[in-house]
């Protein structure tokens, strides 16, 4: 099978596999239902730094270093790091890469950066441009609130459709061959904009983008939803996830039995502070790299599809009355039969 399946789906025929994964989280994520799955749990949102931006950079560095440590490698062994985050000029990724000194490609897909960076890293490894590549991303609740909405000190009210940006970072190392979990397909999304303008209702805005990419993936690969043990979206949360299920039903696919959303898995369901669920690059990265890959190693899941969803708005565009362009990128993970 060739690399190119369609204009948006890639097949990784050169046995691309996950070598290791590392996650680092803030206190709230550490206290959540998946708390024990994360490698590093910081007990303070500042992580001992002077600002939240510095804290996010430190969390990202911690997750990358943990990934290398688990693989028994050092930075010099890695050809390329592809990383991104939610902040202007993707400062967390660039400043972490300044410390780590691996050749760097910055990626931005808002909350879809997790699978966007992994798809690109897998493609570089598959084609042989890299032997080993790291894909990483981070988000921090307080930096994201400041960037996209209001500084938390301002105390602006939020509606129940709002989501809580996760504090944390997830990284994976991919290479060819070995015994790890295989990365088989990536389906990259196109931008879908259904005209939603409310930055406190990103789940509804992103659900159609997730449906568009999922439909393309199923069509391109000839697979059915039931071919996956689990299909997860990144951060559609309580409002967007049911919309995706019904959009897929309209297209003749029943995904509910195989479907979950990372934004609904990261925090306790009874936590009022998270509103409809988690968001941010870290939502999909933490749940996938921290929890789901381990579930695959434990034999609970053999085929996994992660659809990371992103809302590509900026504060400027929504203040100027623009709607929210959304995207979703899918990556398929498989355990050898």
């Amino acid at each position, binding site marked *: 099978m060739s690399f190119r399946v369609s204009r948006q789906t890639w097949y990784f025929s050169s046995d691309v596999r996950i070598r290791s994964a590392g996650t680092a989280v803030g206190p709230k994520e550490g206290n959540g239902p998946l708390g024990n799955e994360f490698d590093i749990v910081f007990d303070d*949102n500042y992580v001992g730094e002077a600002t*939240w931006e510095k804290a996010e950079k430190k969390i990202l560095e911690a997750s990358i270093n943990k990934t290398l440590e688990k693989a028994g490698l050092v930075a010099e062994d890695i050809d390329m790091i592809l990383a991104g985050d939610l902040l202007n000029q993707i400062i967390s990724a660039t400043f972490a890469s300044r410390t780590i000194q691996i050749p760097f490609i910055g990626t931005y897909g808002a909350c879809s950066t997790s699978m966007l960076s992994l798809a690109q890293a897998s493609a570089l490894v598959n084609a042989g441009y890299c032997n080993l590549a790291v894909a990483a991303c981070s988000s921090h609740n*307080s930096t994201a609130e400041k960037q996209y909405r209001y500084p*938390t*000190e301002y105390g602006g*009210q939020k*509606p129940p459709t709002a989501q809580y940006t996760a504090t944390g970072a997830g990284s994976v190392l991919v290479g060819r061959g070995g015994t790890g979990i295989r990365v088989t397909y990536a389906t990259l999304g196109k931008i879908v904009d259904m005209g939603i303008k*409310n930055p406190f209702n990103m789940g509804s805005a992103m659900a159609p983008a997730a449906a568009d990419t999922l439909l393309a993936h199923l069509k391109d690969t000839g697979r059915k939803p039931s071919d996956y043990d689990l299909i997860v979206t990144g951060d559609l949360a309580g409002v967007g996830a049911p919309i995706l299920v019904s959009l897929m039903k309209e297209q003749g696919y029943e995904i509910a039995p195989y479907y979950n959303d990372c934004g609904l898995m990261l925090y306790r369901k009874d936590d009022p502070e998270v509103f409809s669920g988690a968001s941010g690059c870290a939502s999909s990265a933490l749940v996938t790299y921290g929890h789901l890959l381990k579930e695959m190693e434990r034999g609970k899941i053999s085929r996994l599809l992660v659809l990371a969803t992103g809302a590509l708005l900026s504060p400027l565009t929504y203040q100027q009355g623009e709607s929210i362009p959304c995207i979703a990128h899918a990556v398929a993970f498989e355990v050898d039969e």
Partner: protein
Amino acid sequence: MEYLIAFFIGGLICVFGQLLLDVAKLTPAHVMTTLVVLGAVLDGIPAGKDDTLYDKLIDFAGAGVTVPITSFGHALVHGAISEAEAHGIIGIITGIFELTSAGISAAIIFGFFASLIFRPKG
């Protein structure tokens, strides 16, 4: 009775603000400016001898209308008009912050001291 009226009228202004947020989907900044402008407009409407509509509301509801942000609009207009009466047209410019300067300065000064002592938790 005085307290009860203050509570209900003040509460009604807050309900109006909440509706602007939830139903009209205005941003918090738009809600604030809407209420300030509303207070200013009400203070520009004469009601009886030497009184404005907002003054009448203060007589009726007391702190119920002096505590919400609408009273800031009332104070802006009051300052401007009284200075205009004393110094002519230029007083409109110099008088705007006449009555509100204490509130604005206090916000800046106390905000500064609070920022020295406290650190946001996220």
